[in-house]
């Protein structure tokens, strides 16, 4: 469970660090008075949607790190036979990197209110993401044709499960992406959609990072 403990230590450490800054030397029983005299109080300046997403990324980090921990524990048993990863995974990795880059360009354009640039880059990012999913299915098909079935070895089982769970998260992201694209087509104000584009970008970067970790894990074992 080392992988999980490291991830959780980072998450809990961040929470504790932030709390220390908020609570050290604060004596609430000795503080009374109008706002601003002691503490403004009130919420984060970060929008609610962003805090929600960051919290969700912590949950997803916990989920993937637990899968990785289970992977390490299970591979210690004698029946583990590593599979040969299909070459197409390199291509799909490249596609996901491109998707992430185009999301970043779209986000930068959204900040500058460049509507056309946001639209085109969002669309390209989405297309690359669909291509990534197609690449993953291709890899599944190749493995299946080569006789690496789900149940024939735990290494295969983990490969299918890890890629499927990652793809499910991508599908969740694509749902939000499609809503954002739909609103843009209907000429909603870019100002209002800036947050959606930014959240999609953060989410895609996160999923790229998760995929790179998983891919490195699969290649190295």
């Amino acid at each position, binding site marked *: *469970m080392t992988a*999980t*403990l490291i991830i*959780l230590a980072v*998450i*809990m450490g961040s*929470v*504790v660090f*932030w*709390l220390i*800054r*908020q*609570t050290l030397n*604060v004596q*609430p*029983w*000795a*503080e*009374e*008075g*109008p*706002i*601003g005299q*002691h*503490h*403004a*109080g*009130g*919420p*984060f*300046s*970060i*929008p*609610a*949607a962003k*805090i*929600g997403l960051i*919290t*969700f990324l*912590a*949950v997803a980090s*916990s*989920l993937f790190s*637990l*899968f990785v921990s*289970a992977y390490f*524990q*299970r591979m210690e*048993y*004698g*029946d*583990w036979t590593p599979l040969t990863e299909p070459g197409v995974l390199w291509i799909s990795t490249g596609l996901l990197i491109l998707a992430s880059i185009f999301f970043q360009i779209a986000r930068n354009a959204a900040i500058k209110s460049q509507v056309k640039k946001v639209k085109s880059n969002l669309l390209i990012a989405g297309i690359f993401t669909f291509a990534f999913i197609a690449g993953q299915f291709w890899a599944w098909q190749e493995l299946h044709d080569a006789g690496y079935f*789900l*149940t024939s070895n*735990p290494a295969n*089982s983990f490969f299918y*499960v890890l890629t499927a*769970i990652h793809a499910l998260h991508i599908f969740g992201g694509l749902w939000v992406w499609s809503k954002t694209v739909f609103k843009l087509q209907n000429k909603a104000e870019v100002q209002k959609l800036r947050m959606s584009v930014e959240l999609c970008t953060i989410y895609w970067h996160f999923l790229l990072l998760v995929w790179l970790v998983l891919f490195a894990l699969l290649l190295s074992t």
Partner: protein
Amino acid sequence: MAHVALADEGQDLAHPKTWIGAYVWSQDHKIIGIQYILTATAVGVVALVLSFMMRLQLGFPGAFDLIQPSEYYQAVTMHGMIMIVFMLTAFFLGGFGNILVPLMCGARDMAFPFMNMLSYWVYLLSVIVVCASFFVPEGPTGAGWTLYPPQAITEGTAGADWGIVCMTVSLGLFVIAFTMGGLNYVTTAFQARTRGMTLMRMPLSVWGIIMATILGLLAFPALLVSVIMMTLDKMLDTSFFMPAISSLGENLSHEGGSPILFQHLFWFFGHPEVYIVALPAFGIVSDLISTHARKNIFGYRMMVWALVAIGGLSFIVWAHHMYVSGMNPYFGFFFATTTLIIAVPTAIKVYNWVLTLWQGNIHLNVPMLFAIGFIFTFIHGGITGLFLGNVVVDVPLSDTYFVVGHFHMVMGVSPFLVVFGGIYHWYPLLTGRMLNDTMGKIHFWMTFLGTYAIYLPMHYIGILGVPRRYFANGSTEFLPESVQTANVSITIAALIVGMAQFLFIINLVWSLIYGKKSERNPWRATTLEWQTKDYPPKHGNWGPELPVVHRWAYSYSVPGAKDDYIDQTEEPSENTKGDVH
């Protein structure tokens, strides 16, 4: 971290025009909280009735043909899982979390009301799926609440076909529901607090709920991972957990899987789960004690940091549930050490509750009775936890009734007493009526004394060596006859305590119609939930202006003030100057 001075006053709220929109597909956090509470109570009653079945068998073995070994194990499993996950977790976080977090923080609603509504409906679906397992072929799973493979999915265990699948699917749904709710509680507390409500002015109820939510968000994925893999082992014949095994004379297709891996994953969720239930109880009981003793909470900062410390430590104690799994003794030493360390912040909290009571103006009304009762049962369950945290003591006791007595005291009775205390305290806020005091006191004394009549003898028979999980002890030489006498006594006590809970439910319904009308803020509490524009609060909570907070939540018995409390919204004046000291 930078703060802005204004809460999101421009938050858009859904304003339903129909009864169904207002009370069924509601996005109002209070209604959603009540929906959670009603559903959790209903499923809790199912689990209570299952415990009657178990106790009738143990008290009067063989007297009831209806209860055969399979039914007994199914009752044990469903009782445990329903009470821990679908009842207590849902009640504290879905129920109290929904009702208290926005009100105590001064928000109009949760940060994401639609997702909050969705959270309840997915939770309800998970409850329906788990209850559906009573009606599938062979009935629900009888694998024990820990669902250990290989027996959970191997022929011969009750419900090994459909029952276990219903269970894993319902748990998966529950995790999804909890995540949607949890994102709301955390975001609301961090982002949507009103002006002046600094973190360190938040009541401990909110702190407890938020810390438990953070634990849940990080720990429930472990349950999700284990049920996904278990379902695949069951449905698609993978071998994540299933070793090479023969069943009913046939070799199964599995090989090489690790049941211990399941145990690690399960307890990585399972131990924080204890605190997911306990931390909200800690928070709520702190507020009950402070309010009803008319005294500020002793060591507020320590109380906050003890919650944080317990939350952090709860992730590195999981293997103390696995001392008898054949683990490396050095691991055992490590986990025994961390388990004993977690007792330190927990003990700090207990001392602080007692010190809050010390020289307080204690009002022995019903919520306070339950709060004080909690201190007793929690100390009792906590101390037996220290026994079991030590490897050498745990190994002989692990499979005995001592463990059953311990965990029922610490995470069954104790949180339930806080649930009851909380309901007696906040029922007027939600309904505008007081619960009947006489029925409440009868409910308390029957529950409090009755649980001791149930669980103290369990410790005794556990030390004698009575094994847990057994359908019947039969005639075993090392067990004296007094064990059976104790079992009869426990069963009678359990039935009486169970009936007392129906008195509580009657009180809830009776008081809704005939209960004495409550004045605003009947307990003279300082916290924001009693300062809403309407009483009981309506959708949106606060009217046109959000409240402004001027002090912490524990200004009780302030020298020089005209009342023995100053609410959080009262502006500083001559009346409040004694507050700063």
